[in-house]
């Protein structure tokens, strides 16, 4: 599954995207918990998951949404355009 990071989260994680294999469908919250276990960088970046926004294939979703390896998951702080 492709994961995209934007804005401040991209800075904290240190990359704009990465591909992970999750094999079977998982909730976004589970995916994030696994990322947090990787190291302190991820653990810190995802410290406040409720203040982040999530999108699967360009549609806003919440942390309980299921994702598969075919999805594009985007994670970012609330938008501030306009």
């Amino acid at each position, binding site marked *: 599954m492709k994961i995209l990071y934007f*804005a401040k989260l991209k800075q904290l994680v240190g990359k704009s995207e990465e591909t992970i294999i999750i094999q079977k469908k998982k909730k976004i919250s589970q995916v994030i918990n696994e990322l947090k276990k990787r190291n302190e960088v991820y653990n810190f970046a995802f410290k406040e998951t409720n203040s982040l926004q999530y999108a699967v294939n*360009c549609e806003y979703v919440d942390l309980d949404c299921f994702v598969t390896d075919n999805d594009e998951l985007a994670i970012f702080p609330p*938008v*501030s*355009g*306009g």
Partner: protein
Amino acid sequence: MQILFLKKNFIESNFINKFSLNNKDSGAIFSFIGKARPKNQSNTILSIDIELYEKMALVQIKKIINKLMKKYLIDDYLVIHRYGKVKPGENIVLIVVAAKHRKESFRFGEGLMDWLKVKATFWKKENFADGSQWVNQKKTDKEFIDFNL
């Protein structure tokens, strides 16, 4: 009916004039220009970096427009949003709406802007002489979405 994401600054009058000429039968042309401010409270802003998730911004803006078009009868629209580096005084966003009557064009334009602020995937980072900071979504913008969802 056009949505454009531009890296370089643009002259709004060129787009508004062309849009107006293309919509000769519309009785109302609404336009809104959002510009980069030179200051955030007392801090002087040197520039603003605007990050864009293009694919999703396009999807979300189209969704907003479809929703508003069911509510308000309009003839045409143009949405331009900058990305990349923007200097104070430059344009960030331009919305132009053509409708038969003024109220539809006002309401469509205002609604589009309100939703764009909370759904379109752009992020601003303000650069100062002594550092930079990401712009947080305004509380009032968040309240708008909580109220209208």
